[in-house]
């Protein structure tokens, strides 16, 4: 594997380790120690003999063992010197957390260039500077000062913004999806967005790549590489408004803003573009858990309104809702479990008083229809509704039709509903609490 010393290091040195409350150095010590059973962590700080009960070395050269990964979190002005020491130590890779480089102006940029030259001469891969670090939840590697280690999963999240990663991790702790890797790429002095993309594409733990980007250094290269990657890529682009309005002469120039060009490039490269963080992970989640399908969706609902909204969204997004076939209707009628006023239509409204038995009949009948390739099951909580039982029925149905996509819309936040949602998602049925989010997400599965 490429960049093994960065993503799967055995021995790590943290230069700038600290026990000072509120410091980046302390955050890193804490996060790195979570994986201390799997790898050796060496702390470096010339002013301390021990940090949080662990031995501290005066410099990286004082460590006897070989170091795979050096993490540097020291003031910008001494980073060059420290990087030099790391090179002498023959480290396999570096992460420079420190800020104060190209992002601050000319002097910072000059310093960054010097470091870049130094490490590229020795062919040592480097992440950053000016970044949060990287996290590999599957191997409990947290080489960052993020507030927590997120759940392990199949999404590789690559982000230009470190602070957004912090918030995403915080938000995701209560969610059921997880991450194969989180990469904050900072100033891209050495390794750049395209390197991380290629890495994620070859990483066995990663199923879906989620991107947050503002600018791209080499758009053409990004485009060519993204186009070749077979794993789904979902991208959220920040900074869409053109702040640098140039004088324009022709119509083409006037109409081609950054937003339009990025969107065109994403579309052409087969990247799913989204408009919010919520949508980024709604999309990543479904792409991780459900198969690609042909156009043709069935909707089963115990609430008329939610069904109508879902049908509206499907129509807007050009998702086919095939009519229920005579065969399907026959099996529904024959079951004797349907309410006399049930809709006989797609969306199939099984009426508010539906118990689990009725859900089961409806779900099986609809999934059994050949031209229906995906299913949205909506549950509005009514007094007699049985959320956990319904969840189990959905999970079982999915097992019987593994090639069809199944999504749930259990709408609500009550303990009862939450318990069912958690059960669904642990079994890889994505749940969305709003039909719009469900329809938008299932749309991403449809093969064009």
């Amino acid at each position, binding site marked *: 594997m490429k960049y093994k010393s960065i993503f799967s290091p055995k021995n790590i040195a943290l230069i700038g380790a600290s026990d000072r409350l509120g410091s980046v150095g302390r955050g890193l010590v804490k996060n790195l120690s979570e994986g201390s059973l799997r790898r050796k962590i060496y702390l470096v700080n010339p002013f301390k003999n021990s940090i949080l009960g662990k031995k501290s070395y005066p410099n990286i050269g004082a460590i006897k063992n070989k170091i795979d990964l050096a993490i540097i979190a020291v003031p910008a002005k001494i980073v060059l010197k420290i990087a030099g020491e790391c090179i002498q130590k023959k480290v396999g890779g570096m992460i420079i957390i420190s800020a104060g480089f190209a992002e601050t102006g000319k002097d910072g940029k000059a310093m960054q260039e010097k470091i870049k030259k130094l490490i590229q001469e020795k062919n040592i891969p480097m992440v950053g500077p000016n970044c949060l670090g990287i996290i590999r939840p599957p191997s409990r590697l947290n080489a960052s000062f993020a507030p927590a280690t997120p759940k392990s999963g199949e999404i590789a999240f690559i982000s230009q913004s470190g602070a957004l990663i912090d918030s995403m991790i915080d938000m995701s702790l209560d969610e059921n999806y997880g991450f194969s890797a989180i990469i904050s790429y900072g100033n891209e002095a050495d390794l750049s967005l395209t390197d991380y993309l290629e890495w994620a594409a070859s990483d066995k733990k990663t199923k879906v790549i989620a991107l947050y980007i503002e*600018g791209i250094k080499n*758009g053409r290269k990004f485009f060519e590489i993204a186009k070749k990657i077979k794993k789904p890529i979902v991208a959220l682009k920040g900074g869409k408004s053109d702040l640098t309005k140039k004088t324009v002469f022709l119509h*083409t120039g006037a*109409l*081609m803003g950054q937003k*339009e*060009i990025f969107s*065109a490039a994403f579309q*052409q490269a087969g990247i799913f573009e989204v408009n919010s963080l919520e949508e980024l992970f709604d999309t990543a989640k479904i792409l991780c858990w459900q198969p690609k399908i042909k156009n043709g969706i069935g909707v089963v609902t115990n609430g008329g309104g939610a069904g109508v909204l879902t049908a509206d969204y499907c129509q807007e997004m050009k998702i086919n809702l095939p009519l229920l076939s005579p065969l399907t209707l026959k099996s529904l009628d024959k079951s004797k479990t349907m309410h006399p006023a049930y809709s006989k239509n797609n969306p199939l409204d099984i009426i508010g008083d539906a118990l689990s038995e009725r859900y089961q009949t409806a779900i099986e009948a609809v999934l059994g229809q050949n031209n229906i390739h995906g299913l949205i099951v909506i549950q509005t909580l009514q007094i007699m509704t049985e959320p956990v039982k319904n969840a189990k029925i959905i999970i079982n149905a999915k097992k019987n039709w593994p090639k069809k996509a199944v999504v749930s819309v259990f709408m609500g936040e009550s303990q009862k509903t939450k318990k069912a949602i958690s059960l669904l998602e642990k079994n890889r049925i994505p749940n969305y609490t709003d039909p719009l989010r469900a329809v938008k997400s299932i749309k991403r599965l449809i093969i064009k």
Partner: protein
Amino acid sequence: MLLDFHQTEKILSKYKIPFAKSFLAKNTNEAIKNAKEIGYPVVLKVVSGDILHRTEIGAVLNDIRNEKELKTGFLKIEKSIKKNAPKAKIEGILVQEQKSGMQIIIGAKIDEVFGSVLMFGLGGIFVEAFKDVSFRLAPVTQKDAKEMIKEIRGFKILTGFRGQKKANLRKIEEIILKASLLIMEENIKEFDLNPIITNEKGAWACDAKIIL
């Protein structure tokens, strides 16, 4: 730098981009001779890198049907230029075959992040009013070109909506592919083919601007 008419024409013909039959006339006699060759009705329009918005100053006249109208029109344009743009450098007055149909735009430019990018959309006055356009990075495939056309909100208008003339989608596709080749191969910054007029019989650029 904006290319002059002859240089522009040369590049377009190199890429076999159809251009409405046109001649640049210096005086009424040349205009009359050219119009005869093209056949009436014709369009008259001034060609000058200094005058970008011709309609506003009355420097475009459509539907000229005979020699008499041509003479009057020619003089009228000359007069309006003298009045409204006295300092403009004039290449001449273009006598152009009058095409009728839907107006579309195809353009391209070099973007600093992604390189060559193509644009397609409804042309003429619609460009500015609706900004109904689609984009692709060049080079594009025929499939991309087809999608670019279908993607615009006003696609229906091109398919013979309510008695409008149908656009020739196959010819538009061809022009998109040629424009893609042009922006990839020529050392230029940006170009507009606006408008391209299209009807069932074909699609012809009626105006082109190329910036080096």
